[in-house]
């Protein structure tokens, strides 16, 4: 790794700061893989990714000081505990989003940033109310949206297919700007045509797998966005060897979207 860290042009090394929320609680389905992919693709390009972690009991972070904030999915009972904690930072988080900090929110975290999550027994876990979507659990506990999923999305200027895996009982309503159109799988609700929530600096989605491992275009969009925002310059990312990623995508898209 050391070799990658040295900037070949001798200039000051570029640095991206990421805040990883509740790593000890929100880490179902290998969500940490998203950070590993970002780190890998940055280091290959001589960019350093600094990862700070925040969890219950830690000193309060300032969300505005980061370039990326990441949060994943968790088990139901852990979601309640951390919703109480996260709500304390509501204003700071809003501020950070308005200032353009990138937020990547997967599954449970996606739900938490909406108005509320209503559980099977009617219990309501309040959300951050940053976005005005909301989620309600399906009454039949055995029914969940589970399976491989492919969506079509336009991110930046690029149109791309995003491949992942969804596993959620919650049905998310009132999305005006979805992350993508469902080609294969369920999406925000059972047999929905739309998946996730997107705005320029926010991707909120049910896709794990993890999301970025099979979708290098999305990973690079985030990296590019952060570089341009931080260094105030158009940046061209050099191409990486994505042979495995491309073969993986080709194989999966062929088998799902016949």
């Amino acid at each position, binding site marked *: 790794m050391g070799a990658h860290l040295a900037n070949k042009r001798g200039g000051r090394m570029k640095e991206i700061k990421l805040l990883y929320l509740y790593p000890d609680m929100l880490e179902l389905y*290998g969500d*940490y*893989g998203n950070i590993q992919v970002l780190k890998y693709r940055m280091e290959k390009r001589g960019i350093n990714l600094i990862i700070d972690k925040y969890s219950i009991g830690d000193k309060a972070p300032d969300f505005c000081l980061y370039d990326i904030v990441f949060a994943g999915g968790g088990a139901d009972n*852990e979601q309640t505990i951390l919703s109480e904690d996260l709500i304390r930072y509501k204003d700071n988080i809003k501020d950070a989003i308005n200032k353009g900090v990138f937020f990547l929110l997967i599954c449970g975290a996606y739900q938490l940033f909406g108005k509320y999550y209503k559980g099977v027994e009617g219990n309501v876990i309040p959300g951050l109310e940053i976005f005005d979507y909301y989620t309600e659990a399906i009454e039949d506990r055995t029914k969940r949206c589970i399976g491989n999923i492919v969506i079509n999305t336009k991110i930046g200027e690029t149109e791309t297919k995003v491949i992942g*895996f969804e596993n959620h009982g919650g049905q998310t309503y009132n999305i005006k700007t979805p992350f993508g159109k469902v080609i294969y799988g369920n999406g925000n609700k059972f047999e929905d045509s739309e998946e996730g929530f997107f705005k320029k600096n926010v991707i909120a989605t049910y896709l794990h797998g993890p999301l970025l*491992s*099979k979708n290098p275009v999305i990973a690079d969009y985030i990296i590019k966005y952060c570089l341009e925002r931080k260094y105030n310059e158009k940046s061209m990312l050099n191409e990486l060897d994505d042979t495995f990623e491309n073969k*993986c995508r080709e194989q999966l898209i062929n088998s799902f979207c016949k």
Partner: protein
Amino acid sequence: MYNSLTILIAKVLNFFAKILCKILKKDNGNMLGRIVKKLNPNILEYLKIDCPVIAVTATNGKTTTNNCIRYIIENNGKKVVSNKEGNNMETGIITTLIKNCTISGKIKADYICLEVDESYVPIVFKKIRLDTLLVLNFFRDQLDRNGEVESLILKIENFLKTYNGNLILNNDDPNVARLGQANKENKNVYYFSVEKYENASIKQKEAGEGKFCPFDKTKLEYEYYQYSHVGKYICPTCNFGKVELFTEIKNVDLENMTFDENEIHYNTQANNIYTIYNFAGAISVAKIYNLDAKKSLETFKLNNGRSEEISINGIKTFINLAKNPTGANVSLRTLNEDKDEKELLFVLNDNPADGLDVSWIWDINFELNNVSRVITSGKRAYDMAIRIKTSGFDENKIEAYTNIDEAVKSLYKTEVKKYVIANYTALQPTRRTIFSNK
């Protein structure tokens, strides 16, 4: 009458199935149980069982431990009926019992020992009496099939609320130890533990569950981790974790494959911590039934892709099953503890029995020590290749083949020691291909 008739039909079917399977060289698995259950859904309740019924459940290690218990019982000169092929859902258990009963439904054995899928424990033992339940661990496994680990634990906890039989629990796994409080009236709860071994760590190395006390949600304080979330912990609020131990394994020496329990010195064939835990469970069962375990564990062979060691044209090859991150992490630990140069083959499928979701591979800790080449295979060979490359392993030393024949062919191009890890449906095809390379 209908019950006996079902059994008679089943016996006839089984007779022909056996012949058919011999011709086709295939295992008939739980087919018989599936047919019998269709014909007679209550057949389990009808069976006449007089002997003790012992069951093992866990995320990892069910088959090994159940076979170990069966081996111990047999070595003590008793007759045992067991689902040794690992068909551990209701239909698999019906298959085993029907094959071993008389037309009147009586099972002639001194012991029945069964491995049972976690989610089937409440279903099967509503229908047959259970005397001893051994619970080894709960890890993430096929989340898309079982739902989250927590809901699985709750199912078993619910079953235990009215259970008064022997309950043997791994106290080093907080997910398991909590079950001891499901029924406060049950006086037959036994805990086992394994003393800190040389590769235990202060920090958690691999993804795990059970970070919070299940009773008051306080963060658990760990003195050390053996692997994953298994280790010595305590809840600072309610003292959860502190119990009187029934079995405590000490002086674990993986290199010489020895350990001590209650002043008995054991020589085994177990070279990993995970099997030591399985043995701790088996020894606890033996103690309850006054069976001698020492001699059995000396000769108990780990095989069928579960920590199997073979030689292919003189090339040392270790084969291991890994259905979830913990299983894979334990295999990789063994690989990393081996100082020699080696090559790794990882075979990953996403068939329904494996779980369609392969994202668990991102919970595997892929620090590889002295590995000169990695080959990935299976339906999700490319996912695996991406995973390993992202961990920092040189991508030029990774080869991916969805076809297992090509993968194995390439693997044996060199004479370096091999470590093979395969998930559930990938294991037997991988083994077959490797053996046919001999």
